């Protein structure tokens, strides 16, 4: 019979319990949706790269190499890869030949292309409405789409290596047979080789290749943006999901503790009577421990299950960015177990501690109810007498239940943290792109030749040179550019936004952050191609957050690195240049990058909106539960005050007014909390990538966060005030006459 008590009380006080159940639901949901997604992406990624022989590194040479000889010499597998970009409208599909030894294509749907057929990546197909069986005309030749393909070296499908975001509307990859490809490539400007296997002495390997075949570039897997972004994203996604789920759980269990304790205290007579009748502590505990059990049952289980179900669409959203083929959906028992069963541990402890204190007392004490004696000693505080009546009552009520105010502070601080993270992540990315590509890099086109140039044949363009280095003792790759001394197309500025004169060696803020460098430091680097060592003194750090890059003026660059005076490898220009394709390794249009960014902001906005809702909802639930708890337990007092002639507004100030202070305090704590959290996330997520997100909450971000949370606060206050309004002054009279 007594087992009915918890469900009946939960129904009676549903406004409190529904809130807690929703929070637990949210915690399990968030945990599972993230962890299931991460595990799926992670395991599928690992299976994919292993099974389909992802490269260990690749390199580009000017002359063709003797594959068999090098394979034998270094005990590796090498395969040459050919590609050509098919451009139509404003879109590009990069086609590769079908490889068999390294970076083998995985056909996700359909079949491997025969002659006259192609397979393309599913994200591009989806964004451009291309289906299996459709025919596309490539430079006038019709090709049938035979299937969808994934490539192990194009997991993060960006057009250029330096692109921050993929743009599946405008850029995709595909495969076709070598025979077909020959129709589009008459001559090749460079040779691209993919290598699978471990080479112990990379430096001598490079030197060997360079001496025989003129090594143009060399890139290990760890430095390949198109490969490592996935691993980094999974790595950075995990702590975020853990922090979110654990904090929501912690807050919900604190809330449950507070609510349950109040319920247990209000039932002290009944509990004392049961005790007196001969029920044991264990039996009584078993009744009340059902509260956390039901919360878990109604919150964590559906939350966990829905988290698992909805992880499908989350995985889809996720792989639309990083293009990991989900070959089979993994059922991650461990994640689901943690997501569903962790809440019961939190809730169980919370429930146990709530009842434990009461049951430690003697039966007579329980029946009497001892709660008020304790507060008598605590709250005879002299300074309160000097305050106005309303203010002293407000402070007294807060001091009476400090744990509630602490939960509000924690809840609001955490909501502010999530919200600010969402807002600033969005604006940081847009600042990064717009600031870098509009203010600093003012060129529209960038061309890289396959050989050093001497004659500046293209007017209205600026020459540049570049070389790739490692920082000595690390794998951090640094690109150093030599640019025109008075360049109009690369405008470098210091952190006060003043233009920097290009004297000596300047580095980007992104590189300075990554390697913890400051002006005047010596940077020791090793050329990735020839292994030569250089010590460069940093004369300035420029306000550039993209790229592990350094800059010198072209003359100084050539002199420092022993290149011929006036030599250059590339050109920047405002207008498109007519350079024959066979002279180029890379040609890049800035507008492609901007387009990619604009497309991706839509998805980012969706995630942001979810964050707005989660934080609004959390702040609202926490404040509302605690406010309605205060109202419920002060129902009689409120009724007395109403009879005496107090207005609803005055009562709201007296009983719930301290929440204003806690809300504000929580919000203010949220700001430094955000800064430390961001440092942690940026350190974990971006330490191996070559850009820094300048994530800080500016006045506008803080203001927007405040407005949204304040909206939640006002809504909860409005509903609480309505509850106060509904309390009849006659309650006291009725209870008195009963």
């Amino acid at each position: 019979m007594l087992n009915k008590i918890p469900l009946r009380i939960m129904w009676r006080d549903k406004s409190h319990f529904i809130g807690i159940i929703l929070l637990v639901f949210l915690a399990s949901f968030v945990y599972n949706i993230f962890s299931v997604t991460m595990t799926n992406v992670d395991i599928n990624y690992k299976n994919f790269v292993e099974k389909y022989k992802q490269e260990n590194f690749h390199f580009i040479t000017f002359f063709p190499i003797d594959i068999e000889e090098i394979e034998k010499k270094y005990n590796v597998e090498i395969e040459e890869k050919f590609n050509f970009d098919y451009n139509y409208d404003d879109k590009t599909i990069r086609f590769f030949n079908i490889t068999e030894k390294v970076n083998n294509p995985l056909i996700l749907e359909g079949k491997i292309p025969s002659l006259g057929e192609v397979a393309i990546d599913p994200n591009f197909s989806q964004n451009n409405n291309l289906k299996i069986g459709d025919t596309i005309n490539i430079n006038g030749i019709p090709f049938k789409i035979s299937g969808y393909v994934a490539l192990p070296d194009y997991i993060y499908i960006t057009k250029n290596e330096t692109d921050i975001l993929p743009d599946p509307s405008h850029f995709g990859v595909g495969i076709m047979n070598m025979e077909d490809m020959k129709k589009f490539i008459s001559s090749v400007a460079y040779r691209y080789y993919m290598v699978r296997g471990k080479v112990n002495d990379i430096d001598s390997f490079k030197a060997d290749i360079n001496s025989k075949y003129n090594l143009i570039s060399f890139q290990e897997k760890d430095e390949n943006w198109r490969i490592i972004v996935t691993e980094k994203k999974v790595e950075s996604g995990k702590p975020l999901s853990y922090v979110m789920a654990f904090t929501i759980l912690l807050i919900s269990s604190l809330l449950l503790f507070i609510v349950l304790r109040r319920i247990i205290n209000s039932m002290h007579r009944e509990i004392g009577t049961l005790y007196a009748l001969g029920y044991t502590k264990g039996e009584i505990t078993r009744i009340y421990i059902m509260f956390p059990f039901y919360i878990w049952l109604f919150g964590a289980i559906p939350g966990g299950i829905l988290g698992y179900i909805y992880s499908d669409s989350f995985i889809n959203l996720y792989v639309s960015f990083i293009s990991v083929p989900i070959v089979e959906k993994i059922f991650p028992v461990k994640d689901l177990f943690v997501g569903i069963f962790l809440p019961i541990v939190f809730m169980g402890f919370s429930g146990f501690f709530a009842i434990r204190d009461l049951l430690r007392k003697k039966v007579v004490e329980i029946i009497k109810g001892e709660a008020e004696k304790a507060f008598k000693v605590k709250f005879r505080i002299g300074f309160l007498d000097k305050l106005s009546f309303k203010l002293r009552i407000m402070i007294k009520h807060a001091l009476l239940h400090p744990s509630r105010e602490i939960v509000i502070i924690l809840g609001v601080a955490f909501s502010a943290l999530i919200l600010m993270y969402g807002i600033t992540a969005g604006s940081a990315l847009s600042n990064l792109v717009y600031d870098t590509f509009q203010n600093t890099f003012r060129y529209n086109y960038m061309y890289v030749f396959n050989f050093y140039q001497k004659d500046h044949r293209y007017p209205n363009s600026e020459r540049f040179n570049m070389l790739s280095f490692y920082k000595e003792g690390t794998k951090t790759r640094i690109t150093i550019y030599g640019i025109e001394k008075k360049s109009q197309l690369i405008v470098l500025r210091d952190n006060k936004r003043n233009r920097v004169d290009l004297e000596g060696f300047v580095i980007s803020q992104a590189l300075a952050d990554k390697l913890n460098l400051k002006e005047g430091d010596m940077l020791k680097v090793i050329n990735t191609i020839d292994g030569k060592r250089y010590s460069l003194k940093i004369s300035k750090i420029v306000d550039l957050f993209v790229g592990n890059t350094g800059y010198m003026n072209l003359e100084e660059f050539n002199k420092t690195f022993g290149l011929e005076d006036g030599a250059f490898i590339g050109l920047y220009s405002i207008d498109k240049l007519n350079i024959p394709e066979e002279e180029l390794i890379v040609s890049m249009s800035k507008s492609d990058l901007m387009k990619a960014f604009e497309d991706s902001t839509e998805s980012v906005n969706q995630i942001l909106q979810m964050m707005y809702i989660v934080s609004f909802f959390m702040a609202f639930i926490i404040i509302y539960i605690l406010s309605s708890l205060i109202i419920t337990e002060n129902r009689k007092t409120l009724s007395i005050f109403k009879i005496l002639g107090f207005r609803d507004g005055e009562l709201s100030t007296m009983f719930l007014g301290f929440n204003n202070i806690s809300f504000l305090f929580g919000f203010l704590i949220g700001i430094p909390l955000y800064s430390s959290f961001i440092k942690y996330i940026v350190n974990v997520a971006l330490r191996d990538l070559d850009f820094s997100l300048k994530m800080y909450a500016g006045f506008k971000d803080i203001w927007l966060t405040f407005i949204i949370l304040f909206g939640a606060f006002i809504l909860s206050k409005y509903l609480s005030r309505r509850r106060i309004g509904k309390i009849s002054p006659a309650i006291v009279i009725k209870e008195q006459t009963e």
Partner: protein
Amino acid sequence: MFIQVENVSKVYQVGKFKVNALKNINMSLERGKFCVILGPSGSGKTTFLNIIGGIDRPDEGKVIVDGEEITGYDDKALTNYRRRKLGFVFQFYNLVNSLTVYENVLSTKYLSEDGLDPKEVLEVVGMWEHRDKYPFEISGGEQQRVAIARAVVKNPAIILCDEPTGALDFENAKKVLRLLEDINRKYGTTIIIATHNTAISQMSHKIIKLRSGELTEFVDNATPLSAEEVVW
């Protein structure tokens, strides 16, 4: 007339049944009078008091207090009415347990612009020395004295008392009655007491007798006794 009650009726729904709490009540009372409503349990005393106090509304009839028809008021106006004009004393005191004696008195002083000095009022009721105690630290009689001080401090025109001595022993009950008498005399406050104790009616100027919601007698007492003289 200071208080005028015209044809007031009130029906409560209790389950399937209708209970006539008040049936067509008519009465009037001058300012500064001491009035007792007498009747057994369930006679409608509390309902009558609640309607005059603006806590409840009649189904029919009207109540005019100091020229204002309070039965036409909405909740907000009724709150204002209680705030300006009324003090309440309950059988079980209904002090706010989280406030000290002094703060309980201060809580109504706050509502009034021309209220009395809380110290003076607490001295009158003999509770100044206990001002820093919480309600659960003092006896029932003392709590009721604090409740009276709380009602008086805002200097209301009317104090409504619902069984103010019902939970007290004889000595403490007498103290409370003496206090109410003093306040009636000193501040000219109209006092209405609802009680089943017929002895208390001996000290009032007007006696209203209720039975099953009906007014059975409404009499003037030309020779009220002092509280000291009342015995039961």
